[in-house]
């Protein structure tokens, strides 16, 4: 039991349930009491046949009691109610089991004997049983705690089913439909039971309605209406089928009755004929008459048999017919005796017989019976006719009425269902609107556009509505324009800023009173007294305004719907308003919060900026100071462990380390090894002890160079007195130190130098005559090193070439004598491999205090390789010189050649051309056209040849012309060349795109030729273009020079042949396409190459070409 179920389930208004429960329980009790006392009385009471059985009565008593108990508070009442419900369910379930199995469990007549039942005496009808099951289920649910899932819905359907069943049974009773109540010949539901079920079901429905918050729970009454209409229609259909069958049956009965009456008549006639026949014979003795009689006998018997057949089922009439038949047989016997008497005894005996009139009595009796039968049939006929008439009349009334009613119900149902669909549609649209509204609110748009958009969306849902939102300003006294996309601007302007008050239109009043203000007709509403004219001027007739609250309940503004006609809101519209206000609230709160955040962010940014500026100022001052320090000194900062955390540029420069290489290292990286460990320990102890250390330190840079610094290391102490960092400020004193060191270490350095230069050093102490060689000396002479470097002079003498020895010794003697210096070159034979080496020797005499030679210090250097190289060079030089001479000769030859070409080749051409011309002039007429044409060909080819020669000569000349580098303004030159060339072809459309060209250095005439050829080509090869587009520009070359280019949109060329472009006489076009000799580009290449540049070309057939060349940059 959870907390919820502590308070028992009780309808909010128990009065109705209590009343119904009491009535049902009372009726049940009365009927049950009836069963206990006199069952027959009840039978009489319900003459139609259906009686409420004792079990059913008990069930109703218990159900009503349960309903009553449920209205009472207290757990006991609920427990008792549940007990009742279980009992009801038990009775119903046992009955169900009996019906299902066909067996009888003895509960039917357990309480009272049923005298009048048909099939199962005392057993309640199946639908009664069903009704009890439904009721039990409903009551059980009602006893549950409120909030049981889907309870209202289930209860609703249970109630609806119960009512349906009850009404069905009631209708059956009322209209004697004769269907639906008695199933398969079983007992039907008693009319009282039906009424009680209806009552109970209504109570259940009422409970469900309250339970669901006073709402229709099974979707709607409309569904029920439609369903019941359909049900009614089905009932009417069944009823009409029944009526028709009844009519047919009645008609059959009438017909049969008519047939019976007819037959009875025939029987009467037969009997009369028999009588007539007999009488006639008896009176006349005519045998013919007797035959007539005899003949009528079987007819009468036959007719009687037919009447009997027709009367099957009518016991009374059959009894009468039996009497008639008996009489007929008796009469026949009488007549047989009489006829026999007549034959035997004669007519007198017969007359006597006749006289006693026995026969007549019998006949009369017979006639009377037949008449009775006939009368009875006549009565029945009348009854059948009456029944048919009544059925017809009933059908006549009930059918149209039923159909009409069901149609009405269904139509209402359909219409309302339609309405529901519209409602649902509207609900869906509203949901969609809400969804899009929330998306919009979630977006970046600001409040007013969002509200506008919301109003537009809402107006789409409410045809004819003009929606507006007014926002309460910060003072809370005035309404400002929020959004009103469809209201006239002028109206919006007038309303904007209106002060709220108790009677200020709908919105002002709504905001003021914090309540919804529905003004259905502005024209008549007193709230609009001051604004009526304005509103009417704009055709506004209704205005429903609802305040928008914030989460805390404060009014944010109002949401209003205007209409151009007076009207009240429908419930659906009120629903829309509720949701619209909700959405508007979210929008306003959200957007205002965003604005707030935006504003706060802005302020924060400003403050950050201000603070940053302050810091920057302070920083700038520090930076200046630091810059000054950095400029002067080598600065390093280390952490307490000695790791470098800062190194200025000077530090990096002097140490040759990149900053990142220094950071994180300690100063051991710079250790030169010069200082003893104690020195460094002292330094470290000083500074870690918090004292300043000053001194000179020798360090080693990354490249191995040593440098000296005068260093001041300042420890910075933390609050605990321990250093947090050290700052070292140092000055480069390398130069001073170098001088010092140089002086001190000169000998050592010389030794090192000698070693490094592969130079052997010897020293001869003149006084002690001790000759000292270093290791290199021994190596040079191919001798094993002697211990202590002690060498023997004779070893040296032995090694020297005998031819050179005398000279060498003489030089040495002179040097010693003069206390001077000397240089010598001599040959030796190396001791170990007997190789001849050339040695360079140099020595210096160190004088003693007496001014005489004390020591001689000398070096020996094996210069064999150098000597050989020198000889090689000499040889090469000689070869080169002879080559130069050859070249000179070749050049001269070439010059001669070109000179003769220029003269000798040209002259014949001129003659050919000239005389061809003369031929035309002098003998033109005789030559004829063809002759003249051919001469024309000769002449044009001649001229071409002339140009070829010229170009070739120019090309050849180029090789000889010296390069005279001169600064050239390439830009001006290119422009000038273009202008000149363009002027030669005034008919051409040429466009030049000349980009700035950097100056170059070269021989002006040659470079000019380059431009002429390249631009000339560009003009030439664009001759088939409407506009020849020529681009000239320059860009940085990969190799540091400048690449100048000339670009055109002309015929271009196939990149496959790019290699041929620059060859002499190489042409990619025929001379018919483009005139030319094929020398131009070769010339360009030659010139450029001679200037140390390169040429390049790229192009595509019909897409133009770009020719470029590189020149070294002009270095001013």
């Amino acid at each position, binding site marked *: 039991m959870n907390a919820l179920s502590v308070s028992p389930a009780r309808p909010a208004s128990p009065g109705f349930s209590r009343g119904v429960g009491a009535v049902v329980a009372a009726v049940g009790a009365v009927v049950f009491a009836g069963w206990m006392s006199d069952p027959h009385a009840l039978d009489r009471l319900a003459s139609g046949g259906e009686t409420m059985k004792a079990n059913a009565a008990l069930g109703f008593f218990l159900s009503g009691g349960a309903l009553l108990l449920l209205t009472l508070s207290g757990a006991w009442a609920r427990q008792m109610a549940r007990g009742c419900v279980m009992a009801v369910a038990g009775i119903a379930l046992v009955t169900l089991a009996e019906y299902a199995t066909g067996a009888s469990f003895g509960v039917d007549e357990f309480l009272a004997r049923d005298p009048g039942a048909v099939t199962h005496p005392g057993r309640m009808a199946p639908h009664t049983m069903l009704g009890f099951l439904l009721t039990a289920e409903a009551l059980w649910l009602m006893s549950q705690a409120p909030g049981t899932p889907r309870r209202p819905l289930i209860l609703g359907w249970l109630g609806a089913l119960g009512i349906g069943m009850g009404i069905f049974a009631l209708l059956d009773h009322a209209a004697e439909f004769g269907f639906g109540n008695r199933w398969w010949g079983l007992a039907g539901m008693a009319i009282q039971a039906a009424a009680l079920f209806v009552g109970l079901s209504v109570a259940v429905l009422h409970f469900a309605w309250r339970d669901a918050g006073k709402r229709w729970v099974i979707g709607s009454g409309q569904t029920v209406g439609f369903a019941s209409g359909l049900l009614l229609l089905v009932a009417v259909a069944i009823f009409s089928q029944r009526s028709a069958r009844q009519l047919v049956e009645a008609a059959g009965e009438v017909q049969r009755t008519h047939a019976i009456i007819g037959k009875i008549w025939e029987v009467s006639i037969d009997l009369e004929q028999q009588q007539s026949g007999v009488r006639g014979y008896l009176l006349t003795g005519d045998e013919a008459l007797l035959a007539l009689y005899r003949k009528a006998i079987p007819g009468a018997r036959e007719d009687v048999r037919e009447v009997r057949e027709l009367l099957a089922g009518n016991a009374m009439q059959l009894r009468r017919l039996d009497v008639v038949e008996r009489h007929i047989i008796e009469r026949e016997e009488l007549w047989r005796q009489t006829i026999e008497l007549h034959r035997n005894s004669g007519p007198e005996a017969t007359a006597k017989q006749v006289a006693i009139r026995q026969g007549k009595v019998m006949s009369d009796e017979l006639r009377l019976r037949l008449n009775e039968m006939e009368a009875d049939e006549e009565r029945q006929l009348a009854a059948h006719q009456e029944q048919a008439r009544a059925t017809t009349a009933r059908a006549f009334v009930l059918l149209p009425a039923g159909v009409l009613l069901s149609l009405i119900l269904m139509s209402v149902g359909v219409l309302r269902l339609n309405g529901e669909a519209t409602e649902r549609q509207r609900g869906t649209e509203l949901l969609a609107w809400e969804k899009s509204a929330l998306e919009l609110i979630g977006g970046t748009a600001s409040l007013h556009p969002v509200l506008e958009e919301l109003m537009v969306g809402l107006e789409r849902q409410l045809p004819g509505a003009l929606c507006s939102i007014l926002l309460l300003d910060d003072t809370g006294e005035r309404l400002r324009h929020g959004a009103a996309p469809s209201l006239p601007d002028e109206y919006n302007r007038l309303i904007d800023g209106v002060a709220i008050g108790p009677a200020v239109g709908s919105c002002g009043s709504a905001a003021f009173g914090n309540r919804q203000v529905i003004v259905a007709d502005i024209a008549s509403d007193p709230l609009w007294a001051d604004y009526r004219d304005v509103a009417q001027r704009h055709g506004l007739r209704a205005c429903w305004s609802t305040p928008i609250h914030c989460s805390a309940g404060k009014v944010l503004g109002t949401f209003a719907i205007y209409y151009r006609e007076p009207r009240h809101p429908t419930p659906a519209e009120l629903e829309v308003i509720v949701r619209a206000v909700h959405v508007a609230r979210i929008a306003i709160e959200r957007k205002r919060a965003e604005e707030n955040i935006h504003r706060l962010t802005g302020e924060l940014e400003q403050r950050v900026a201000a603070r940053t500026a302050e810091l920057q100022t302070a920083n700038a001052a520090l930076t200046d100071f630091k810059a000054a320090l950095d400029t002067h000194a080598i600065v390093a900062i280390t952490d307490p462990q000695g790791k470098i955390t800062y190194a200025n540029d000077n530090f990096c420069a002097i140490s040759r380390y990149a900053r990142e290489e220094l950071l994180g290292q300690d100063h051991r990286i710079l250790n030169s090894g010069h200082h003893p460990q104690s020195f460094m320990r002292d330094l470290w102890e000083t500074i870690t002890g918090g004292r300043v250390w000053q001194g000179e330190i020798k360090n080693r840079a990354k490249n191995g160079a040593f440098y000296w610094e005068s260093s001041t290391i300042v420890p910075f102490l933390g609050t605990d007195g321990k250093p947090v960092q050290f700052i070292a400020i140092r000055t480069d004193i390398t130069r001073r130190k170098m001088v010092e060191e140089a002086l001190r270490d000169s000998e050592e350095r010389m030794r090192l130098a000698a070693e490094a230069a592969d130079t052997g050093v010897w020293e001869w102490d003149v006084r002690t005559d001790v000759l000292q060689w270093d290791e290199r000396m021994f190596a040079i002479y191919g001798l094993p090193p002697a211990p202590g470097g002690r060498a023997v002079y004779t070893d040296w003498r032995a090694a020297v070439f005998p031819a050179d020895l005398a000279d060498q010794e003489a030089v040495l003697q002179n040097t010693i004598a003069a206390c001077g210096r000397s240089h010598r070159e001599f040959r030796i034979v190396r001791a170990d491999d007997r190789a001849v080496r050339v040695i360079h020797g140099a020595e210096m005499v160190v004088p003693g205090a007496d001014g005489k030679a004390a020591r001689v210090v000398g070096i020996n250097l094996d210069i064999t390789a150098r000597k050989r190289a020198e000889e090689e060079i000499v040889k090469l030089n000689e070869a080169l010189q002879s080559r130069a001479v050859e070249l000179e000769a070749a050049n001269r030859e070439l010059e001669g050649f*070109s*000179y003769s070409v*220029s*003269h*000798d080749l*040209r*002259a*014949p*051409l*001129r*003659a050919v*051309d*000239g*005389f*061809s*011309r*003369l031929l035309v002039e002098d003998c033109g007429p005789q030559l004829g056209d063809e002759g003249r044409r051919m001469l024309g060909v000769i*002449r044009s080819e*001649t*001229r071409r*040849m*002339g140009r070829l020669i*010229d170009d070739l*000569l120019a090309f050849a*000349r180029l090789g000889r012309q010296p390069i005279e580098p001169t600064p050239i303004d390439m830009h001006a030159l290119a422009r000038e060349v273009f202008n000149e060339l363009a002027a030669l072809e005034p008919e051409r459309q040429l466009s030049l795109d000349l980009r700035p060209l950097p100056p170059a250095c070269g021989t002006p005439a040659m470079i000019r030729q380059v431009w002429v050829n390249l631009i000339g080509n560009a003009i030439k090869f664009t001759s088939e273009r409407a506009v020849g587009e020529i681009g000239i520009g320059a860009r940085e070359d990969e190799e540091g020079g400048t690449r100048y280019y000339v670009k055109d949109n002309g015929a271009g060329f196939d990149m496959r042949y790019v290699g041929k472009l620059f060859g002499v006489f190489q042409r990619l076009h025929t001379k018919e396409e483009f005139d030319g000799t094929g020398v131009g580009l070769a010339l360009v290449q030659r010139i450029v190459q001679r200037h140390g540049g390169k040429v390049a070309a790229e192009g595509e057939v019909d897409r133009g070409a770009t020719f470029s060349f590189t020149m070294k940059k002009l270095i001013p």
Partner: protein
Amino acid sequence: MNTPSEILLVEDNLHDAELAIRALRKRNLANHLVHVADGQAALDFLFAAGDYVERDAAVQPRVVLLDLKLPKVDGIEVLRRLRADARTKVLPIVVLTSSREERDVIESYQLGANSYIVKPVEFENFSEAVSELGLYWLLINEPPLRKL
């Protein structure tokens, strides 16, 4: 040789000479033209030596059209000798040659040539050049020497 010659054409190539003469003739300038085929002949003519020993050396042509590439004595040498001699020092000499060689051009001018014309290969140009030349030197130009 009674008629003083006005043009001395020094040209070893007879075809060129013919073309030149024809061009001049067209302008009626070739009436007093003397054509020699080598440098020696030119010198002989101007200095009235050799074959021209009977000529009056005081009478000089108004212009000498001198080819550079000549048999025996070449044009440059002829020019040098003419300029070296007082009688022909100021004689208008037009170098008319096939050579475009810069060396030739410079040397010719340095030796005192009055003009340097490269013979065009095309006949029209050649003929025009020659006739213009004749026109200029015979009619327009005022000769340095007294006319006879």
